[in-house]
């Protein structure tokens, strides 16, 4: 079956602009996670959705970052007023209820000029 998909694959933007990154999880996966991978920082947890519960935003680095998940499926990560340090690969993952295994999408490579 289809895996986790993310769009766009690559995004180049100018400093100060807003960007939206999209994630389509695997059907039936109730948990959805956003991570960021940047050089020298490894993979960092950003935000986590579980079913219809309020998301856990404890990993978001600033209030410029937000995410929503519509209908318990597709999720959008929004970065407002982008900064050069936001340049990274943004990875989305999903998992079945009560499963520790996460399935990752191919990521969106964001470059802020």
């Amino acid at each position, binding site marked *: 079956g289809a895996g986790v998909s993310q769009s766009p694959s690559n995004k180049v933007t100018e400093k100060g602009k807003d960007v939206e990154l999209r994630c389509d999880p695997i059907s039936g996966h109730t948990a959805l996670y956003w991570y960021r991978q940047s050089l020298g920082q*490894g*993979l960092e*947890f950003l935000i*986590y959705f579980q079913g219809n519960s309020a998301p856990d935003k404890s990993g978001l680095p600033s209030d410029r970052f937000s995410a929503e998940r519509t209908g318990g499926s597709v999720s959008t990560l929004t970065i407002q007023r982008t900064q050069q340090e936001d340049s990274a*690969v943004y990875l989305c993952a999903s*998992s079945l209820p*009560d499963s520790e295994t*996460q399935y990752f999408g191919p990521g969106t490579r964001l470059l802020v000029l």
Partner: protein
Amino acid sequence: SQQGEEDPQALSIQEGENATMNCSYKTSINNLQWYRQNSGRGLVHLILIRSNEREKHSGRLRVTLDTSKKSSSLLITASRAADTASYFCATDLFSSGNTPLVFGKGTRLSVIA
């Protein structure tokens, strides 16, 4: 801060040799997972070992866990050029259910044909 720390950071071996990567973590865990990443894109789950297990095998992979030392190792036997990738250990951020993962910075493995 990162929960897991892998070593070595980079490893280069000849095809057919075994590759061993180590991971250390800081707090108590329910389980530990290993993931693989090709070319800085999506991660693929390899194996999960629970805190009450000491060793687990999957094909050419062997994982050990020493909770007293808070460490794990991943052994890839009879390596192939296709095993060239980055390998990450990951532990639970929360103690139960679906949970975001905390990743180490990874070991970059190069298998030379």
